[in-house]
């Protein structure tokens, strides 16, 4: 559930990882063309 408190994670960090801060982008979810015959998408 949402909270306004950032608690320290209670698990061991993954060894082969590095800090990553990403976001999501609406432009990647805007559209996929129709799948048509005979020319595909």
């Amino acid at each position, binding site marked *: 559930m949402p909270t306004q408190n950032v608690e320290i*994670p209670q698990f061991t960090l993954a060894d082969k990882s590095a*800090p990553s801060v990403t976001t999501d982008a609406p432009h990647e979810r805007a559209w996929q063309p129709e*799948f048509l015959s005979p020319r595909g998408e």
Partner: protein
Amino acid sequence: MTAVPPDDLISRIDLALGSDPRFADAPAIEARNLARYRLGLRILARHHPGAADRLELLSRAGDDELRPVMYDPVLRNAFENDMVALETGKGPSDALAGYLVSGAADPSGGALDGLGPCERLSRPHVRPWPRHSGSWVWTDLDGAARPQQALTARLEELLAGTLSKDGSDNRVVPDAALLAALSRGAGLLTELLPSAGTGVLPHVSLIGFARYDDGDETLNSVSGGDPLPSALFLAPARLDDPWTAAETLFHEGLHLKLFDVLRTGSMVADPDRLVPIPWRTRSWTLTRVLFAMHVYAHLLLFRAAAAEAGPGLRAKYGPPPATEDVDQATPGSEAAARGGYTTSLERVTYLARQAAEVHGDMLTAEGRDFIGWLIGAVTPLAPGILSEGGPVAGPPAAVPAVEPPAPLEPRGYRQARPVHVCPIPEQRRLVAVSPGTPRFRWLNDHAWLIYALCDGRDLAALREGYLRAAGQGAEDGLRHGVAGLLSAGLIEPVGA
């Protein structure tokens, strides 16, 4: 060395393509999406005081109540539009709040029924694969009464905007035979690929049918992104043969899965990057390349599994197609003139190399990991898709590709306020959003720890806390983590 039996290999790849928590496992992807919705509803509540109670209440609801509402095509579209309006400074817009306040999304009598707002209006109610998910069929909608009238009108409007032909004129109301063929196609898909095949179905909320054929082109199928979320439409002819039906459901379900993955992590940094496609006359965006590659890679598995299908499946569903039916090259394209690119393997090889090796600099770390996972999973079926030692063949990039970070602030950092966060410890992730700049930020375990340690303590204490957990060699990680959090607006230097 003993050769791996084909069916064991197929089972292993099926499991790999259906179980990865970041890119494939439907419950894990759904958990991230629900966390995102809970946060987004809190943000919308701050901007719409008149609907704040309804929005907050939905944010606090259990998954079984939240999911049907937020995976409804009309309400999901409204939410995404409202969030984009805030992100781009055009907002606030109140589409979602409007549906909630009007009562259009409420079950009759107020009792929870497990149905989404649009599904509730369908007559008859049809769930074609209830053992696997709550997907429902657009039969007829009983939307004559207010306030539900707004939902039916909006759903028709979204469909019309998704099909290149006028959607409302082309929609087909399914009869019993068509519904039976739909369930049969899904049955084949889940029996053939119990993990990867079954795993696309929870990403489908709405299944509709549409038909058009103008002589030049015939609709096979289509699925929606944010403009018509969680919905796919099939041409009835695609259900004539169960193998074609299963493959088409797989194809469009994979698109819907990837849309859900992309709601919790961007893969392409440059939306305008174009990639030439030898079997088409127009270039594709890099995002479209990833979508097509995703499907073609899975089709390698589908076809391998079909070729190895046992007598039980063949007796039940008939023989699989003897040859691969890949759509034609566009007239005027390089492939139309010179040949080639007539198989899924040729196409996925080209797309993967373009994405990973030619345009890899435009992928996010998530995008690089995605290609590494996807192509790595199907490589036993088709060795050599990626060049040996290609950019994603090795371990994922250890450090995000950002500008060299500035020196760290000796007085330390603190979290920017206000902020709403939602921890997902089982996935080692935290999602955060600040109402001032409402953009969802996804932190992995390392970034989450650094963020939590940015509580006003000085740099020496921050460094000591992080290196104790990450190892003494993680100084660069700390610098990049702080830079990423600063860039996202989640922290600020003490004293700023």
